[in-house]
């Protein structure tokens, strides 16, 4: 079994925090494409359209026959042929994380690959292969034990590839909704040390307030993402103590573009969803960037929960979808900025949630618990894009296959 992670001690104020360095980042376009699959938690390799051979590492053409390569999901099985422990490196990130174990894996899919190893994996073991994003957003093969083992997630090498909430301090931006409360509870259950739970209007009661605020590990905080002063004030208080940000805030009202639309609703949707996201990022991201390799409770991730309709637009909820599109775009920009410092930027895409503003939509709607599981999954896997619920999964799959068709389908 893996040694359980120690509860981090308070920091020695005389020590300078370790720089948030990232592993080497220069990759080919093919490798960048592989990263898009890693971000979804898929295990893919390139397959030759002509000779059917599977190839790794990522290439532009088939090394056997110059055929065209296509990404395809592969069997995750592999056997570790050899293990090496690296004790010295010229790379500054790895130097800070020595010793580092790698191995040669014979993949069931065919190729032999150099892979990162979980601490419990030994030579000769059958393993489960995962394709993950490293701290710099690059794809990497990581071998884990075939079956779940105690404290498996605590492996220090694996933890460099995740944003696991264990022992970390999380800011959940909106705790006034059933969704925010379910996520806060799920994060505590997943081992989060503290959940700072945002309340946009502390003078106004909300359902479940007494219960959630009484829960150990919950710290209510005043946070209104439409108010720059409020965000800055909280960032000033918590900036150096927030390891994960989970943005649960949003404003959804029905309406079209020219028909049935209210501009005041559109403004509110954008101000909270899109501008609010930028306020949150400006408040918290800089301090997080400085602490991305700061021990067990290093800053790790900035996660946004966003309607999947941001990919396509949505008739009947045009403003909410447009705001979601803006959020996805801002998150892409933020991902690029945070890759420099090793903070993961994660989006959880959701279909209509089961709340007051989607009363007339057909089932299945996303329940708070379902969304909470998706958030915890995204963090523990360090996964860039996670779909919560069947509507989001379906739309995302259609959008990947044909974005323009999906836009037509969702707007008629």
């Amino acid at each position: 079994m893996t040694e359980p992670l120690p509860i981090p001690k308070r920091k020695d104020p005389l020590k300078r925090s370790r720089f948030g360095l990232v592993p080497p980042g220069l990759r080919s376009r093919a490798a960048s494409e592989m990263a898009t699959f890693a971000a979804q938690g898929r295990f893919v390799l390139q397959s030759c359209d002509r000779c059917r051979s599977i190839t790794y590492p990522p290439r532009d053409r088939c090394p056997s026959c110059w055929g065209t390569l296509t990404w395809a999901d592969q069997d995750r099985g592999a056997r570790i042929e050899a293990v090496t422990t690296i004790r010295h490196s010229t790379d500054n990130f790895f130097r800070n994380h020595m010793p580092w174990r790698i191995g040669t894996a014979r993949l069931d899919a065919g190729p032999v690959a150099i892979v990162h190893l979980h601490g419990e994996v030994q030579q000769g073991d059958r393993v489960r292969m995962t394709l993950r994003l490293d701290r710099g957003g690059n794809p990497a093969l990581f071998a884990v034990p075939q079956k779940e083992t105690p404290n498996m997630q605590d492996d220090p090498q694996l933890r460099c590839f995740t944003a696991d909430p264990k022992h970390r301090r999380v800011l959940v931006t909106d705790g006034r909704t059933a969704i925010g409360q379910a996520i806060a509870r799920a994060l505590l259950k997943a081992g989060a040390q503290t959940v700072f739970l945002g309340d946009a209007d502390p003078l106004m009661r909300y359902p479940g307030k007494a219960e959630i605020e009484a829960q150990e590990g919950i710290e209510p905080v005043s946070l209104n993402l439409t108010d720059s002063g409020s965000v800055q004030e909280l960032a000033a208080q918590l900036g150096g103590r927030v390891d994960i940000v989970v943005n649960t805030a949003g404003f959804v009202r029905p309406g079209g573009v020219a028909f049935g639309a209210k501009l005041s609703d559109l403004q509110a949707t954008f101000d909270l969803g899109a501008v609010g996201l930028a306020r949150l990022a400006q408040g918290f991201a800089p301090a997080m960037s400085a602490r991305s390799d700061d021990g067990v409770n290093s800053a790790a991730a900035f996660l946004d929960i966003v309607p999947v309709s941001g990919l396509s637009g949505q008739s009947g909820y045009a403003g909410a979808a447009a705001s979601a599109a803006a959020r996805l775009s801002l998150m892409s920009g933020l991902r690029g900025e945070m890759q420099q410092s090793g903070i993961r930027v994660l989006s959880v895409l959701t279909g209509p949630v089961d709340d007051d503003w989607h009363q007339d939509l057909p089932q299945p709607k996303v329940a708070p618990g379902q969304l909470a599981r998706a958030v915890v999954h995204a963090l523990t896997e360090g996964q860039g894009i996670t779909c919560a619920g069947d509507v989001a999964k379906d739309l995302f799959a259609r959008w990947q296959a044909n974005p323009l068709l999906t836009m037509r389908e969702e707007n008629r």
Partner: protein
Amino acid sequence: MTRSPLTLLAEALADRTVECIDLTNTLSPDFPVIVLPAEFGQCAPFRMEKVSRYDDNGPAWYWNNISMNEHTGTHFDAPAHWVTGKDLPSNTVDAVPAQDFVAPAVVIDISNEAAADADFVLTRAFLEDWEAQHGEIPKRHWIALRTDWYKRVGTPDYLNLKEDGAHSPGPDGRAMEFLVHERDCVGLAVETVGTDAGQAFHFNPPLPAHSILHGNGRYGLQCLTNLDKLPTFGAMIIACPLKIEGGSGSPLRVIALVERTPA
């Protein structure tokens, strides 16, 4: 030389025999706004985004963009705010005669009644009793309703929003008819978030202050502070809303001129 009223006023201001009392709450992002049922459009709170503060966006100057509803913070209600006043002439803030921005006030103190009962309703009978004690309410005055509600700002008790709605004091329909038609008031000036009582939607007629004031070309002043610093008679209220084209109301600075009582 005979001295004009304004010269006398200037002298009084200079020697502080006339004082200015600020009746305005500070416009801040956390100042509460009226909350309507969730399916209606809502009142936007005050917001401020920095443009520059002696920085790269403006090295020597500090300024902000601000946004809010016309009815955010201490604010003025024009007749066009209510459906009853929609067809009146000069019913928007840009058209309200400037003469009406300066008017005397009579202060009716219901602070004890409001403290005892947040749903205290001001009735015609109460006003008639009040007149029997204090004298008749003069014409063309603001009716300033002192509730001490401003002392609740910053607490949940200001909006006092319970599961059955807001609970705050206000007038009923007959009181409003009396004040408008028999006492020809300029308007109703209150410390609460609206001129109507929190539960006034359930009155008959509903929301009588809004309905009767604005239907007769009168005004509202809401979210005032310091009404307890004013004398019952003799204060002069200066309340100039922003000249918003076609506006239904406006945040504003409200001050009262009061004669200092000799020590």
